């Protein structure tokens, strides 16, 4: 018996030590860490109230390290000093199982959602009040979870309203998935910003354009007397507002082969040609022909009537040529045109003594464009 006492002194404590250790081992096997977790919030601005325009919702992805039996819960806990900010209004939350979140998943890893969170899910948010209680989102009715599988769930507003903490910066969140004595959790941080939005503003302007109008498409010069004085007729051309300027050019038709001018196409044919000189002084008794002038549409402005077509000398007209290749610029402006402006086009013609009686006609084409 005496020899048994030392043995018992060792065996009995060892028995209880092993028993206690086994208890710890068994108990700790049920308290694990979530292998993977992320929270994809819809907004990360601090101080969102959950009101219109400040709605917050989130997708939670968790991968437990333990198998968790059905009937469990998932709880999100927020910092104690941020009571009633994450849960702005207590009440039910809308819980939607989510099988994927391509915007946040990391493909081929435990941070990729494998499966929608199983169960008959309900949710609620509760507010902390003072030291020791915190804002919580609780998802109940969670089905059985398998270790190594990443589950997704979307948490949205219902009677309960989600917000964000008032202060920008890091905020610690603890997520716990549990059922009975089995519990996996992880604490991590998210970052809230003073402002999470970039506002893009744009001014869209109309494409550059210019509107050009001609007041009349026919002008009657009246009767020309062979060897007599010159006759005139006129109309106006108008240019709309432009951003960088405009131009007007003209060309005639004449006899179709020789020159521009008033053409009598019936026998005996005859051309009162515009001529080869730049201008015609029809006040000169020896000069005949056909030409035109334009008035300055803005005497003090930047519109310019080209030199040969100014109307400052009575009886002197600029000559025109045939076809597009012979087009001559008669009016232009380099620069912004703030309002529409008009110029009077005056045609002058004088027939020689040899001009046969009859009807004469010229078609003058006007070309208007903008500088862009």
């Amino acid at each position: 018996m005496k020899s048994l006492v030392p043995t018992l002194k060792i065996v009995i404590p060892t028995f209880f030590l092993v028993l206690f250790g086994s208890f710890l081992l068994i108990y700790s096997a049920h308290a694990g860490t979530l292998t993977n977790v992320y929270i994809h919030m819809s907004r990360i601005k601090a101080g969102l109230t959950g009101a219109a325009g400040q709605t917050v919702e989130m997708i939670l992805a968790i991968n437990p390290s333990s198998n968790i039996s059905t009937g469990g819960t998932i709880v999100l806990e927020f910092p104690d000093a941020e009571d009633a900010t994450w849960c702005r209004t207590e009440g039910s939350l809308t819980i939607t199982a989510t099988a994927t979140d391509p915007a946040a998943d990391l493909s081929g890893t435990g941070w990729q959602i494998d499966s929608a969170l199983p169960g008959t899910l309900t949710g609620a948010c509760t507010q902390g009040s003072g030291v020791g209680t915190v804002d919580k989102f609780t998802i109940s009715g969670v089905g059985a979870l398998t270790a190594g599988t990443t589950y997704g769930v979307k948490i949205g507003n219902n009677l309960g309203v989600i917000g964000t903490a008032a202060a920008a910066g890091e905020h610690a969140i603890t997520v716990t998935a549990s059922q009975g004595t089995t519990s996996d959790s992880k604490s991590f941080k998210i970052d809230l910003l003073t402002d999470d939005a970039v506002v893009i503003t744009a001014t869209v302007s109309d494409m550059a354009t210019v509107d050009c109008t001609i007041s009349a498409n026919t002008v009657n010069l009246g009767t020309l007397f062979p060897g007599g004085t010159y006759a005139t007729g006129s109309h106006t051309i108008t240019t709309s507002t432009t951003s960088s300027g405009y131009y007007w050019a003209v060309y005639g038709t004449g006899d179709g082969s020789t020159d521009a001018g008033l053409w009598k196409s019936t026998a005996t044919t005859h051309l009162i040609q515009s001529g080869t000189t730049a201008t015609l002084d029809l006040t000169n008794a020896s000069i005949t022909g056909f030409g035109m002038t334009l008035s300055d549409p803005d005497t003090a402005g930047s519109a310019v009537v080209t030199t040969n077509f100014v109307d400052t000398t009575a009886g002197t007209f600029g000559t025109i040529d045939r076809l597009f290749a012979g087009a001559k610029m008669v009016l232009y402006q380099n620069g912004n045109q703030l309002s529409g402006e008009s110029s009077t086009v005056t045609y002058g013609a004088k027939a020689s003594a040899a001009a046969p009686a009859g009807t004469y006609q010229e078609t003058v084409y006007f070309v208007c464009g903008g500088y862009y």
Partner: protein
Amino acid sequence: MHGDFTQTEPGPIVSVTTSAGSVFFDIDIAGPSGTTAESASPYSISFTGAYQLISGAPAVTAGDRIWLDASTNSEGGFAIVVRGLNGGLYSNTTGQTIVSSTADLDTASDGFGIQNAYISQDTYSYLGTISAMTDYTGTANSVGIVGTTATKVYESDSPVFNGRMGLNVIAKPGMNKTAASDYQESIYFVFIPRF
């Protein structure tokens, strides 16, 4: 020497501090050379003045970029996602939207989007690298969508320190867009660390 056990002097002390991770994210607005520029909110970029948009004209890249700072020790790195309020540049005056899409604005008749222009981060063996998603890696006037649903723009699969990213903002109004000075979009950025 008596007994069954002996004892040596204590070995070296090894200590470690654990924390709930660290995350940092920031937005800045600056020109193309603003790789280190910092700016305060509100954040805005304007297509006005020399950068004004003209209906039917070629695409325009805004003079300023959106710069993002990101650092985290999260094991799974991070994702940065964007979402637009309107899904494009919307005008209250005209009721028209220059719709955002993933497109080459040199060939598309109309559009709006963002394009990765810059990525940098600290490089150590235990750190990851940032990559832009394919839709946002275009050149010239190819852009990625800023839609009304969240889309991933940048990602890292490992911790990142001193990450810096720059985004061009590019827009092209079609010939059917009526002139107005109030086309606008709010782009929301969300930083998602993965622990």
